[in-house]
């Protein structure tokens, strides 16, 4: 008998039959949660079983994402059936479901999150899952999921009162604001009806009430991602009776205050805490802007925390911090299960290389990182292929290698108009006539339903840029002559 799955809105009231796996809305969510699920399967599956083998392969760094997702789906179903005494718990599952499609030039993690959520969507109705909804921006995907719903503690705390309309992750904030008479029930209603982002505004209201030391502690915690079992979710931060906020410590009083006002909230496990995505998203940028030294030191300290004996959950969070620290060696060292996040380091190096003045060495270094991702991790990573080519081209790398890389990116993600356009553009730059393909591409992308993402514009601009670099002005003229109306309508800046 498989344990029935459930969606819990708010914090689950009782104990969970498994550790909660947190989604944060960060770029690494899909890879990280997939690794954590594989780790859980490895712990639960019978040794030598198909599920155990699948888990091991999932955790192997060279396993391609598509393969990983396929393995995971089968193994999850097997374990749920074999182990009705346990469950898989995803906390803030809306972070996986509520994915705005990224723009074509940065399209990377949203597709992976969709893949992972697709797995959950297919296996959860079969049993063995608790999906915790702390925010409700996952919308239709979760509403339509064929899994029964129940309400947790945080919902009960708001009761039928004025906070009932809001998502669980801000209800503690509401309760605090009301208790302090910073806000009346009538004002809350006013906020709900008139403010564009009511939940975010409530975070602002709570934050502004806090004394400076507590604000600084909140910002520092917003930059921190630590496994729940490490210091209750506070990672390596010490709690100091005296002194202010530093990269390694926050005042004990600040911790208590953060927890009291709801900026940091309890999980289902006693003594373990987390900062909700709504709060984290609001404060993380401020942390980088106002306390860059402390945040950088925090990332380095957490990035260095992984040891050879660290658990998967410890390593994936250390890797996140290593990537954020910008320390390439540390990032590569901690990339034990996946390497796609190294793209974040490469991206920064590439942006710096763009100057002014432009730096071919910088582009070459970025290309090298993307090559590392492809060689040592996932050879099917379309994003890595694309930006390997892009940076290699700007570093005056061998044109045949650039061309091969652009082609691979397009092959692995044929529906990305930018990748397609750059491939064509580069071929045109090298002297090939691509007019017919470009015209066909423009007409094809003009049929895309989601024109808000401007597929024609991404495609055409990339093609024209390549042709211009190759002085192939005749080709540009021919394409414009054939597609003038479409370009005027759908790609006015091309």
């Amino acid at each position, binding site marked *: 008998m498989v344990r029935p799955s459930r969606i819990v809105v708010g914090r689950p009231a009782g104990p969970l039959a498994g550790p909660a796996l947190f989604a944060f809305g960060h770029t690494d969510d899909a890879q990280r949660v997939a690794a954590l699920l594989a780790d859980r399967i490895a712990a639960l599956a019978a040794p030598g079983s198909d599920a155990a083998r699948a888990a091991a392969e999932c955790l192997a760094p060279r396993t391609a994402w598509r393969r990983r997702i396929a393995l995971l789906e089968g193994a999850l179903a097997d374990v749920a059936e074999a182990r009705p005494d346990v469950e898989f718990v995803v906390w803030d599952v809306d972070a996986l479901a509520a994915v705005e499609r990224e723009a074509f030039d940065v399209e990377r993690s949203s597709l992976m999150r969709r893949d992972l959520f697709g797995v959950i969507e297919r296996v959860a109705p079969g049993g063995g899952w608790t999906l915790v909804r702390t925010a409700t921006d996952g919308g239709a995907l979760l509403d339509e999921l064929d899994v029964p719903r129940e309400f947790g503690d945080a919902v009960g705390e708001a009761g039928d009162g004025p906070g009932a309309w809001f998502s669980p992750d801000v209800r503690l904030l509401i309760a605090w604001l009301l208790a302090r008479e910073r806000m009346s029930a009538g004002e809350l209603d006013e906020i709900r009806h008139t403010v564009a982002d009511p939940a975010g505004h409530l975070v602002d209201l709570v934050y502004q009430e806090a004394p400076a030391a507590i*604000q600084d502690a909140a910002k520092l915690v917003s930059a921190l991602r630590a496994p729940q079992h490490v210091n209750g979710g506070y990672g390596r931060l010490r709690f100091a009776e005296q002194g202010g906020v530093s990269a390694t410590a926050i005042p004990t009083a600040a911790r208590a205050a953060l927890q009291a006002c709801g900026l940091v909230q309890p999980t289902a496990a006693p003594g373990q805490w987390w900062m909700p995505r709504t709060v984290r998203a609001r404060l993380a940028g401020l942390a980088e802007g106002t306390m860059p030294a402390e945040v950088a030191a925090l990332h380095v300290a957490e990035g260095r925390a992984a040891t050879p004996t660290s658990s998967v959950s410890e390593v994936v969070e250390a890797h996140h911090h290593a990537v954020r620290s910008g320390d390439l060696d540390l990032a590569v060292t901690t990339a034990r299960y996946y390497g796609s996040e190294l793209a974040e380091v490469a*991206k920064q190096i590439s942006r*710096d290389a763009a100057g002014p003045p432009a730096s071919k060495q910088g582009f070459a270094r970025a290309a090298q990182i993307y090559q590392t991702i492809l060689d040592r991790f996932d050879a099917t990573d379309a994003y890595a292929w694309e930006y390997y080519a892009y940076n290699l081209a700007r570093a005056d790398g061998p044109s045949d290698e650039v061309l091969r890389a652009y082609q691979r990116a397009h092959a692995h993600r044929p529906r990305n108009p930018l990748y397609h356009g750059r491939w064509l553009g580069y071929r045109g730059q090298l002297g090939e006539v691509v007019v017919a393909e470009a015209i066909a591409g423009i007409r094809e992308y003009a049929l895309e339903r989601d024109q808000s993402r401007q597929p024609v514009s991404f495609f055409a601009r990339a093609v024209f840029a390549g042709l211009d670099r190759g002085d192939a002005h005749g080709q540009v003229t021919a394409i414009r002559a054939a597609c003038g109306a479409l370009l005027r309508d759908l790609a006015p800046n091309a």
Partner: protein
Amino acid sequence: MEIYVLGPGVGESVVVRMPDGRTVVVDCCVDDGTNLPAALLDDLGVDHIDLLVLTHPDLDHVRGMADLVRRFRPVRVWRYPRGLLRDTLQVLGGMTTAAGAERFVEARAANDALDELLQTTGTVAHTTSGAVWSPPGAGYRVVALAPTPYDEARAFARARELVERARGRVRLTAQAEAWFSGERPLGDLPNMVSIGLVIEWGARRIVLGGDIENGDGTPHSGWRGVLAQLARPDVGLGALMDDVDVVKVAHHGSTGAWSDEAWARHAATRRPVAIIAPYAPSRLPTADVLGRLRAAACRLGITSAEGDGAGRARRAGWADAAARSVPLVETAACVKVTLPREGDATLACGARAAWLA
């Protein structure tokens, strides 16, 4: 009740001596190195402030505030909702050296002083429409008119737009750069969070309009929003805007802050006394507002001759009126209204100020 409006041409502060001897101070300004409200409080023999209101973080309302806070240790403070302003100022402070940065230096100093006070006394409150201070047995109440929750959120969102993350780093947005370099006016951003007040004492009502403007035109914003907020059933303060005795005209008499709806309420059955602290660089008050006031107010006090506000008033049909003098040299850019519980108000003004009728 004595109401002093101080305004040297750039800067505005209001000092109210309440009938029970308590003191309310709204904003701060400096004239030629003299902290005007501080000098006035010294002259009046006041050693502490009972309610200090910092309406919004514009330089002409915040200059000298840190000094005022430290010298007169207010018992309670109403601070405009600052949201993430502390952080924004921290970021800006490290980024800009433009002339416009003085605004942020002063605002930061004022906020730091208030944060110190918050740490020691815990009596600093971020205040929005509907907040009330009513000392037991005093017979009066002070009510915050603005900002509305909608404008508060609008201001927070706009403040976020001052800085952006680009190429992995935090920097000023192009719009913010233009603001600080003086290429573009800052617009109504600080005024979105401006607190306004109404003081009710028996049948007397005094509106101190801060820099409240007309917002974005929605029913939740600016003066329309204020009227709607006060009328909310759970607030029940709508009548406070009716038949007012004295109005400190909002935003130095700018056209964008004039509200026909609010003034129709203020002057429902009798015309109030109006007071303007000019903002000389922008030629405020405007001729338009001075003309409208001709119909809506019975007397007009202008705190300073700077910028020729009084001249524009005369051209709008106002004539000089007799008034007593305020014998305070340092606060000569000042008008004063003495309001008994019943009967006519007494008007007085400093050497640089004028009363018109």
